[in-house]
């Protein structure tokens, strides 16, 4: 299934996060292996986004460690970042740039080159045909989200951390995104996802972590 690709692991040990004075979760332990999808569940305010930001390395946890292949991501920094793709609530696209420009610049910053033709092809695949070179500020919410999600198709990152990726998407796009995630998992990647939507996702390789009320 993973033919020749190194199998990575992400291990979370005794993780606690605090926002302001409020303890969001304490002593969280779980691991994610190659070819696994992890779904983070919990009520609003239970700390799902905080957990994802901590896993991405944007946020320093109060206690505990996040280890990539056995090494703390704090010491790996850029070495970990090159395996990672994080999509948060914000799309991270510039309204003054077109979808193609946004995608190509994201690619260079992620450390690889994306030709103009390939960028057009990916945007066509994600359902933005005819909107590729419009300034992104003229796109709808769902279309902007699609521009951000196009990075999933361009990138070779092994770990996807997706915070509410289905927000603002129409039925066809939800379908497409599920398929993209399914392919990624089958290819030996890992994905950590939060969602409120009941998506019948991905069968056997899905596990769930529930935040809040002390049970994990």
């Amino acid at each position, binding site marked *: 299934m993973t033919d020749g690709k190194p199998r990575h692991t992400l291990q979370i040990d005794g993780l606690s996060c605090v926002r302001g004075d409020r303890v969001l979760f304490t002593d969280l332990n779980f691991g994610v292996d190659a070819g696994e999808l992890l779904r983070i569940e919990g009520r609003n305010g239970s700390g799902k986004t905080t957990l994802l930001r901590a896993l991405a390395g*944007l946020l*320093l946890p109060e206690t505990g460690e996040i280890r990539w292949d056995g090494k703390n991501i704090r010491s790996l920094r850029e070495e970990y*970042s090159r395996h990672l793709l994080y999509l948060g609530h914000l799309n991270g*696209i*510039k*309204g003054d740039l077109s979808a193609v420009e946004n995608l190509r610049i994201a690619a*260079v910053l*992620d*450390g690889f080159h994306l030709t103009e033709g390939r960028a057009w092809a990916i945007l066509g695949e994600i359902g933005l045909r005819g909107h590729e070179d419009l300034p992104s500020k003229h796109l709808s919410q769902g279309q902007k989200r699609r521009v951000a999600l196009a990075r999933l198709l361009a990138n070779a990152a092994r770990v996807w951390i997706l915070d509410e990726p289905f927000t603002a998407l129409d039925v066809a796009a939800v379908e497409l995104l599920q398929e993209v995630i399914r392919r990624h998992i089958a290819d030996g990647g890992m994905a950590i996802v939060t969602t409120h939507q009941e998506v019948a996702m991905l069968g056997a390789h899905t596990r769930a972590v529930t935040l809040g009320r002390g049970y994990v």
Partner: protein
Amino acid sequence: MGPTHARSPWGADMFEPLYWIIRRDLTIAMRRRSDIFITLIFFVIVVSLFPLGIGPERDTLRLIAPGIVWVGALLASMLALEQIFSADHRDGSLEQMLLTPQPVALLVTGKVIAHWLVSGVPLVLVAPVLGLQYDLSWEGLRTLIVSLLLGTPTLSLIGAIGAALTLGLRSGGVLLALLVLPLYIPVLIFGAGAVEATVSGLGGESHLSMLAAILVASLVLAPLATAAALRVAED
């Protein structure tokens, strides 16, 4: 899978992300040109107000010219500073930049260079015209241009630290001014000093050397400090 991830970001292709980030910010700036003119017009108005208030005596004007042009440049570049990271912070591109395998200090350097090209260079270009208004000699004007060329990048570099530290705060603009203006003092002293020294016949070379030294030091140190501040801001 086409992407090649293995190369070191500090190797030969360290310049590729630098080039792209500059190109990105310049493209965005060109598509919203009005922001550039605001800074420039502010500079012109501030510097032009003084002759109106002080009166048209040539000797007085010549005496105060270097200081006034430099203070004007300081305030104008301050005005543009807040923009440098705030838009990226709001739309989420900043957190994406922190998550790329590129060194954050490198990306910061690119952003500051783009910011200087857009907000600093126009000041340098228009300064000689304003200098004429103050009856500065040709030598004085020449030194003014060189001093601004060496000084305004430092203003952008130091200002970026302040902009990163005040990112997302409610009264960020005022706080930024309080934080950054004191740090601008050395640049002001040597910048205005260079022009004064040239006009009075002493030669401004030593002042200009100091400005260049400050520029080199801040080019090395300021992006590192800014990168650290950005990480805190996104925490």
